[in-house]
């Protein structure tokens, strides 16, 4: 047998190493092309942001911004709104003002008080906790308090103010820093009185009967899901 093993061995060696070498060169070339053509990795990724719900139309935001500014929710503003202030900044009638809160029905809690009282009962405290705990990505917590049209208007204004502050004090009793997120709006008996329709909303006294007077002895609390 005259086979010369050196020639086939050399050929086999070249063939065996050339195949992987060429494959690697080809794959590397493809990777280089893909790398240069690749888009920015985060270009299609959402960026973290506060909630901005569907109901936050530009018009609603404009109104909220005015109200929030006057009520101390925006930087540099004072805290607490007089009813006249609210009416002015909202630039709408009471019915339209209440309609603003319509889409927030599920998140809103109406904390009810006894006549001429500002103390939170167990149900009121539970409602305040529930409302506060449901912040999600909302930036501002609104407390809109009212009084029923019994007695003096001035007294009712003070009464609604005390009710709003009672809610805020309860929520911020563990952390004063939370005040920076809470806006108070006390309306007395003058402006945006609630209709009996609101008896159907989340009330702290849901098992009790409800009429228009009772629903207005209240503080209306909710996180607002609009980036203003």
């Amino acid at each position, binding site marked *: 047998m005259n086979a010369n093993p050196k020639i086939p061995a050399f050929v086999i060696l070249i063939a065996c190493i050339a195949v992987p070498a060429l494959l690697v060169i080809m794959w590397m070339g493809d*990777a280089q092309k893909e790398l240069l053509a690749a888009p920015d990795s985060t270009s299609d990724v959402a960026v973290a942001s506060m909630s901005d719900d569907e109901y936050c139309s530009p018009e609603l935001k404009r109104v909220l911004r005015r109200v929030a500014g006057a009520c101390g929710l925006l930087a540099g503003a004072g805290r607490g709104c007089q009813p006249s202030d609210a009416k002015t900044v909202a630039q709408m009638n009471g019915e339209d003002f209440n309609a603003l809160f319509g889409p927030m029905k599920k998140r809103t809690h109406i904390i009810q008080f006894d006549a001429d009282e500002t103390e939170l009962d167990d149900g009121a405290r539970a409602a305040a906790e529930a409302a506060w705990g449901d912040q999600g990505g909302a930036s501002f917590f609104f407390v809109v308090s009212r009084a029923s049209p019994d007695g003096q208007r001035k007294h009712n204004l003070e009464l609604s103010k005390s009710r709003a502050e009672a809610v805020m004090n309860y929520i911020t009793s563990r952390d004063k820093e939370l005040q920076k997120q809470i806006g108070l709006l006390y309306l007395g008996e003058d402006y945006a009185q609630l209709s009996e329709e609101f008896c159907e909303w989340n009330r702290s006294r849901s098992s009790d009967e409800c009429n228009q007077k009772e629903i207005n002895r209240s503080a209306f609390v909710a996180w607002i899901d609009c980036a203003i």
Partner: protein
Amino acid sequence: MASNFELDDDTGEHTLPPLRPQGRPWLWATAAAGLGGALFAGVSTHDFITHLDRQSHSIHCSLVPGAGASLGESGCRTVLMSPYSSLFRTELWGGLPISLLAFAVFAYLVYRALATSLQPRLIKRDTGYLWLATALPLLMSVLYGIISTQTIGALCEVCLGIYISSGLGFLFAAMAHRGAEPTTGMSSPWPLWGRWFAEGVGCVALLAIIYVTFSPENPNDKKSCGVLAKAEDPSKILLASKHDRGTSAIMVLDPLCPACRGFDRRLEASGLGEQLDMDYMLFPLDAKCNWMLSESLHPGACAVSEAMLCAPDRAEQVLSWAFANQEDLLQIARESEAKVRRQITKKFPHVKGCLGSNKVKSKLRNSLRWGVANALPVLTPQLFVGDKRICDEDTDLGLEFTLTAMLKEAKGL
């Protein structure tokens, strides 16, 4: 001493004795096993190289070479993304893949088996070398099998194909050696073995040089992807880890995110985590608490995050437990989040009374709001070295390369 050569009756020249046929088929079988190993190693090398474009790609994960490509989590993906899949990772983006070296070794074994089978005589000198050569991939297979199961905790089918090919190659080479003629009347085999070994080293070196030479270049390598706009933490939402290592870092994570677990393990295995003063920022991708999502990617992550925030000094314990039981917790949470909360309370009684409270929910919200303040992308994991964010494409294969560069920059080197 008996001669291996016989005198030809006609010519009077020395001729070779007839071949012993039983060894040759085993050589072909050895070549076939080498070819199988080369196929599996080639598939793995191809998968590795496709990821050099810094994008996500499917990875083959099957005992049938080239089959079972999948984009999802798999043992093959875990192993490929692990620091054990390549060498020189701090010098080269992704490093030099082990599978490439295996590719070269198997190609070389195919060559040696075929070359030996083409020899006019099958002698133990030649088959002995081949047998010895096949021991190398076998030893590496045993070593990587142990690393894969004991350290990485995952088994990849393509690797298994390589292990099986290695084992068969060794076995067939042994059988070929058994069937070969004894080596008699010849000088020492070492010079020839040395030459053959040099050929093998040359094959491996050639492929490695080609890989490094043609390695894709990215003009954005070593650069960061964004900075923290408001790194301050007035609400104390960042969970601190050890703080005596030098360079401050923040990892944005979701305790039930598989990618976060993988990243955490890669970081630990790389050893570079030892140089970081790591803080954790919780960013659960669970719509239960994260308003930025319309549906939960990792249900139950809010509950685990709350547990971590309840006792910051024991947060790492909770995180380790969550990582270890991630699949189970996600499964349970899909049925009922309350069950996850019960499991957490059972495992960590100290969170009772805190878990689910408004206070801890508020803290978790503040954590998410920190993400808003810093305009973080809604994804996990993210790593900030100092205030610079490591690019997402550099958090797996390119982690060591990029992180080493960022650490040097942070240290002013």
